Every structure is written in C-alpha cells, then in structure tokens.
C-alpha cells in the first residue's frame, strides 16, 4: 500500500522541477516559496505514509507474538 504511495510521491517530486521552468514572469523571487510549499506538502504525505507503514509492521510483529503464545498455551 505505502509502496504505491511512495512511488506516486517520487513521480510527483520528479515532475515538479520539470514544470517549474515554463513560466517566466516578474516576481521570480517568489519561486522559493512556491517550491517550499510543494516540498513541505510532499514530505508531509510521504512522512505520514511511512508512519503508517511502521505501525503496520509493529502490528504484524504483535500478531506473530500473540499467535505464538496461543499455540504455546494450546500445547500445554
């Protein structure tokens, strides 16, 4: 799930600078702010996807531990 999200984010990050060059008007000193907006947004969503992956992994570990303890208690 999150691998797909990460792939999406990477594609979008790669696309962004390619498009930035196409509009040259005055006020180009605003460009850093525009960049910052996109960068922060993608980092935030990427970070959240990563956070969810970590939680999923923790859950898996817990389920395995639980399953083990169930099997052990059934053997006794």
């Amino acid at each position, binding site marked *: *799930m999150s691998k*797909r*999200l990460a792939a*999406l984010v990477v*594609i*979008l990050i790669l*696309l*962004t600078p390619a*498009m*930035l060059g*196409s*509009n040259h*008007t*005055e*006020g*180009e*000193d*605003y*460009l850093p*702010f*525009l960049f*910052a*907006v*996109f960068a*922060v*947004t993608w980092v*935030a*969503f990427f970070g*959240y996807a990563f956070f*969810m992956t970590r*939680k*999923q992994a923790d*859950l898996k570990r*817990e*389920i395995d531990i*639980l399953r083990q*303890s*169930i099997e052990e*208690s059934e053997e006794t």
Partner: protein
Amino acid sequence: MTGRLTLLGSSGVLMMLLLALIFLWVPTDIVLGISQRIFYFHVPMALVAFLAFGVVVVGSIGYLWKKSERMDALAYAAAEIGVLFTTLMLITGMLWAKPVWGVWWTWSPQLTTSLILWFIYTAYLMIRSYAPQGDQGARYGAVMGIIGFVDVPIVYMAAKWWRDVHPEAVVGPLADEGSLEGKMVIAFLVGLLAFTTLFAYLLMERYTLRRQESLVERLRYSHV
C-alpha cells in the same frame, strides 16, 4: 482492496492534472505574481481539514449513540489525518502570506480559526492518548470532538468581530480572497477534488489500521 486502489490511482491522476494546470495552464495573477499559485494547494487543503473535522464529529456522535467501534476508528483516523492537513494548511498559509503580505502571520479570521482548529485536533489526540485505552478514551475523545465542532463557528465569529475592532493587525491588499477568473476556478476545483480523494484514500488506510490495532489490543488483553 480495489476500492483503495481506485482511490489511490484517481488521487494520483488528479494530483498530476492539478500540477499541470498550476504550472502550464493557469494565468499568472497580475497583483500577486507567481506565489498566488500556492492558493491551489493551500485552500483545498484547508477545506479538507475542515471536512476531516466533520468526519470526526460524525464518528464521535456515532460512537456515543451506537457504541460502534467502527465509528470510533473513523473518528480517530479522521482526527489524525485532519491534524496533518491542518498543519500543512497553516504552513502553506504562512508561505503564501510572506511574499504577498510581507509577514509570516496575520490574525485574519480564517487563519485564527484554523490555528484554533489545530489546537482542538491536538487536544483530541492528546486526550485519547492520555486517557485509558478502549471505551473510556473513545468516550472522552467523542465528547471533545463534539464540543470542538460546535466551538469552531463561535471562534470564527469572535475572530471576525475582533478584526472589526482591530483592523490594523490584519494587513495586505488582498486580506480576503478576491474574485477568481474562469481558469483559476477550474484549477481550484481540480485541486479540491484531488485533495479530497487523497484524503479519502488516507482515511481508508488509517481506518483499517486503527481497527486492526483495536483488535490486537483486545486479543492481547484476553490472553495475558
């Protein structure tokens, strides 16, 4: 599973469409220049942040009324993602304010209410993490969600009236959003759709994760 994939796929496509519109199609605002394009990210995210809080309150009422654990998972997931969107809204708002108005922050009613919304979300998540897990935490969160939801419009009113008394604190030629041209409206709507689908996708994922967490929690306590 396919529902999730559709959501992810469509949000991805919409995002790319949005970027294309922002960079290749939309005209540059005469007064504000390039930085106005931040608007197409900032405002949709703001609207989604408020939408997320609506989901929180729906889940909260649902939990208190029906004791439905799914409603509670929905509320929690929406709150977490809501914090994410609210934080992004505040940051992009500041990044928009600096080039346009010259200041990082201004106490406009929208920004003030958004800041308070951020605090209410945070309070919701904190009460849930500090209260005993399970039913009690869910109940506390639900009450907080309902109170917070009713409070937000009151905060907005108070902030608006405050601004009427202290106008010099809010600065800038376009303190309110002016009228938009046709192309800008379309780009904005695409942005709204893109972020809403992204929100829906993230909500589904977090909701499922949350239900699994509760299940594991219950299993752990019944076997220890």
